[in-house]
């Protein structure tokens, strides 16, 4: 019986890939160094005695969370205002998005039924689309900063900011949803002489209603999140209250409001998820 053949491969003494590892390590340092320099990345500052003192005092203030009835009522009313800003903003956004979608959908073009779309309608559709892209690509926080200047502090600026950004977003995505579906029914209606609005209402809309609604509900949830953020530039709601408490270094109030905010977002999340699954 032959002895077990001795393996000719011995484990190497050195890591065979050391050169590659060294190279990638150096490359990572070379890439990360300018990033760290540009962001003034100095983690040791966090453990500096002075900043530890400030942060420690602030964190110690977190407990107990503010729970006086007055403050809870205030927090609840501001939470409602946050929801209201999001809802009102989204309603106005729909007023903007629905006509823009009707104007820009290629499927509803009569001239496109016979080959190429005529030049006029094509450019109308394209320019509406570009307008939507511009509306969407300005962050809502920037809109809010601008509107706070024009209409003053308060919820009006937040509602307008959400309306413009979300109007652009909804209009663009509605168009994409309507064009990605089956166009057969709509085309048949148009060919048989129905008006564009009729073709939309009886052909395009029933096919895509569930998807459109589900996207709208999802955006409503996003709008609640962003209306809290808008409060930080003075557009009302929970964010403005939170900003005030942070500036006063009132940790207890900050903790309560963070909890209220997390609960609010979780509730909206749950509601929108339930609604979307029930829509299928």
């Amino acid at each position, binding site marked *: 019986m032959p002895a077990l053949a001795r393996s000719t491969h011995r484990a190497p003494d050195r890591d065979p890939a050391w050169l590659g590892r060294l190279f990638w390590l150096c490359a990572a340092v070379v890439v*990360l160094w*300018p*990033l*760290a320099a*540009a*962001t*003034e*990345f*100095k983690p040791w*500052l*966090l453990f500096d005695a002075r*900043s530890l003192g*400030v*942060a420690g005092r*602030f964190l110690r203030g977190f407990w107990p969370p503010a729970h006086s009835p007055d403050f809870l009522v205030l927090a609840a009313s501001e939470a*409602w*205002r946050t*929801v*209201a*800003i999001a*809802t*009102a903003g989204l*309603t106005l956004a729909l007023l903007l998005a629905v006509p823009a979608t009707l104007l820009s959908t290629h499927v509803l073009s009569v001239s496109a039924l016979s080959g190429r779309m005529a030049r006029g309608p094509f450019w109308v559709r394209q320019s509406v689309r570009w307008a939507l892209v*511009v509306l969407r*690509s*300005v*962050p809502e*926080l*920037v809109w809010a*900063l*601008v509107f706070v*200047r*024009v*209409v*003053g502090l*308060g*919820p*009006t600026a937040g*509602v*307008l900011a959400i309306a413009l950004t979300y109007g652009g977003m909804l209009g663009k995505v509605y168009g994409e949803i309507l064009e990605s579906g089956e166009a057969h029914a709509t085309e048949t209606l148009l060919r048989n002489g129905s008006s564009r609005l009729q073709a939309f209402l009886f052909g395009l809309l029933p096919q895509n209603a569930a998807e459109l609604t589900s996207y709208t509900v999802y955006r409503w949830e996003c709008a609640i*999140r*962003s209306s*809290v*953020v808008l409060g*930080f*530039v003075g557009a*009302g709601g929970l*964010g403005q209250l*939170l*900003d005030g408490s*942070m500036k006063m*270094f009132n940790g207890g109030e*900050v903790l309560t409001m*963070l909890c209220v*905010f*997390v609960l609010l*977002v*979780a509730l909206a999340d749950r509601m929108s998820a339930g*609604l979307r699954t*029930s829509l299928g």
Partner: protein
Amino acid sequence: MRRPSTRAANAPYRLPPPLFDARCRACWWTAATLALVLASFWTLDLRWSQFVSLAALRSMGRFIGEFFPPDASPEFLAKVVRGTWETLAMSALGTLLAAGAGVLLAVPASRMHAGDAARLRTPTRLLLNALRAVPELVWAALLLMAAGLGPFAGTLALAVHTSGVLGRLFAESLENAPPGPGAALRAQGVGSARVFLYATLPQVLPQLISYTLYRWENNIRAAAVLGVVGAGGLGQLLAFHMGLFHMGKTATILVAMLVLVAAVDALSYGARRVTTR
């Protein structure tokens, strides 16, 4: 008595459904939505009069007019370019830190195999949800106290929020990884750390990288506005010059922001077209 035949030659005339039926869920949802919208407009003290009146429109026009001409002096442009670079650096470093933290948090947050007790799964998921629920801007405002004004606080804020998002996504993909290779190694008695490194991680790595790139794209957009609370980047420049009513400079910064966002959109659209073809 003979029951009337239900099958007529012509379809029997049917009444239209009642407008509101207590058993119709869609009706209830519609009613609730309408009530929510009406209540929202009712309770908010919206100042439309200030916005749509002639005087307001005139002041709006004047406000927009002040944006022109945008400040295009070379020294200010250099400042804007530096701000843009700072924004990009914040988003990149924040995302990178978040990817590292996300992997570290995703491991306890996922059940690696059927026999895994995964005791830390629920608490870690709660932590991830909490990190995710608080927006970047709120994190930035909180972290300003510890990290001071400037891009460092913004980077940390992006990292904290994104590690919540990425940790959750990573945990999902770790749990959905094909169990075969890991089971084979475990059957040989390999320890769980090496099973993770040599079986689970290589399988999910492409997915983790694509999630990270997707979040990076989002974070560039977020980093651009994060500065309005004082956390560096283009946003800080914007808040500063808008506060001082330097409208020409504000216009330049807004244009830079728009260009940055549009460039990111176009790049990601192009990359997606190239990679999914």
